[in-house]
């Protein structure tokens, strides 16, 4: 077993019967102990990628290994070390919350009842209520608890906070942070809410056009992607270009350029070339995401 990478995807392709080629060569290595946020536009293939990782969907080409095993043929032992919260939670509506927990627990060799009971209490889930009438948010909470119960080493969450209110979202983040205190545990989650990701994630993977276009530390991303506000001494020519720019707006003497890898040398070059003053702006993850997708 490769020691470091919990998930190792190499050149993963997957298309659907409808002819949609969703994943076009995904490479992704997720080291043990990291908290990775998976970002991408709607329909970028985030859920598909997560499902391929879990062996729910079969990949067309490439290799996908989880805990060093082929994801499609994951063994029972590996599955016992895996937790998953799907985007849409499907549970048996007739069951009570308590029964659903007991049912799930029955399949796992170890189950942390104390923690589960505590979470059920803290998250104000009614243990004796039927699952059917629960709200979507409550269902999601229950699914998260079910996925945490066996203390998995790898937790995969598909938009886990989408239907949670701000309070519940904070509770969830706290549970995740608590969960990561054990350094053996790895979390991979997809989300649209970048502010949550900025709190808990230490790495970011960005999925675009069926490929992972960025995968590195969140801090690295924030430190390398910058927006330059350039004011030149003279009118900028229409041919004005900056190496590695993601997005650019030029108007007269000033230009607004988002660049992927900002460094002092590049900025100095620009400064001398155009005799310009340059302000370097830090970008939030949301801004970076927008710049990378050429919007705004």
């Amino acid at each position, binding site marked *: 077993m490769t020691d470091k990478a919990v998930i190792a995807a190499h050149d993963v392709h997957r298309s659907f019967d409808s002819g949609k080629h969703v994943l076009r060569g995904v490479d992704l290595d997720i080291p043990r102990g990291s908290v990775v946020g998976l970002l991408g536009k709607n329909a970028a293939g985030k859920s598909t990628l997560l499902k391929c990782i879990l062996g729910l969907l079969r990949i067309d080409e490439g290799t996908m290994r989880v805990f060093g095993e082929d994801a499609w043929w994951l063994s029972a032992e590996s599955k016992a070390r895996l937790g998953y919260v799907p985007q849409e939670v499907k549970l048996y509506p007739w069951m009570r919350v308590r029964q659903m927990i007991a049912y799930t627990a029955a399949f796992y060799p170890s189950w942390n009842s104390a923690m589960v009971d505590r979470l059920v209490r803290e998250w104000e889930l009614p243990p004796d209520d039927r699952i059917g009438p629960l709200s979507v948010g409550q269902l999601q909470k229950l699914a998260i608890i079910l996925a945490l119960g066996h203390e998995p080493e790898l937790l995969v969450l598909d938009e886990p906070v989408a239907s949670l209110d701000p309070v519940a979202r904070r509770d969830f983040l706290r549970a995740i942070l608590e969960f990561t*205190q054990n350094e053996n545990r790895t979390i991979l989650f997809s989300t649209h809410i970048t502010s949550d990701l900025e709190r808990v994630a*230490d790495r970011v993977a960005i999925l675009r056009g069926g490929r992972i276009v960025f995968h590195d530390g969140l*801090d690295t991303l924030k430190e390398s992607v910058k927006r330059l506000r350039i004011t030149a001494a003279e009118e900028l020519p229409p041919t004005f270009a900056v190496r590695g720019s993601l997005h650019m707006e030029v108007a007269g003497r000033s230009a607004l350029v988002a660049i992927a890898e900002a460094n002092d040398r590049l900025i100095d070059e620009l400064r001398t070339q155009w005799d310009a003053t340059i302000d370097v702006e830090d970008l939030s993850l949301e801004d970076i995401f927008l710049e990378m997708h050429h919007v705004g």
Partner: protein
Amino acid sequence: MHEPAFRFTVHPSSGLPIYRQIMDQVRALIAGGHLGPGDLLPSVRQLAAELEVNMMTISKAYNRLEAEGVIERVRGTGMRVRPPDARRSLADRRDEVRPLVEQAVIRARQLGMDDAQISELIQSILKEHPS
């Protein structure tokens, strides 16, 4: 352990990485006299729980500060603020301030100020912040 008389705040959505925000705040607290030499910083776990951020982020900030010589690790106790004189050589400190001053001077030149006006300005700022 005494209750620290200061609080950290972080803005995850700001462009500055969280670990940098924490580093800046530790520096500011030291500069402002809220943290003196020998004072203990909260533990990584404690601060991560308080700020609701990843523990790795906190330890990254502490490690950087340690590398810069602002704080030091005390076995079994945690992170302690180092006395200022032992921190860095004058050359080091000058290197850090130099780009900031340089940028200010360039901007002043662009605005058409002459040398005398610039040094006068610096003198007046120095007066406003007596050491």
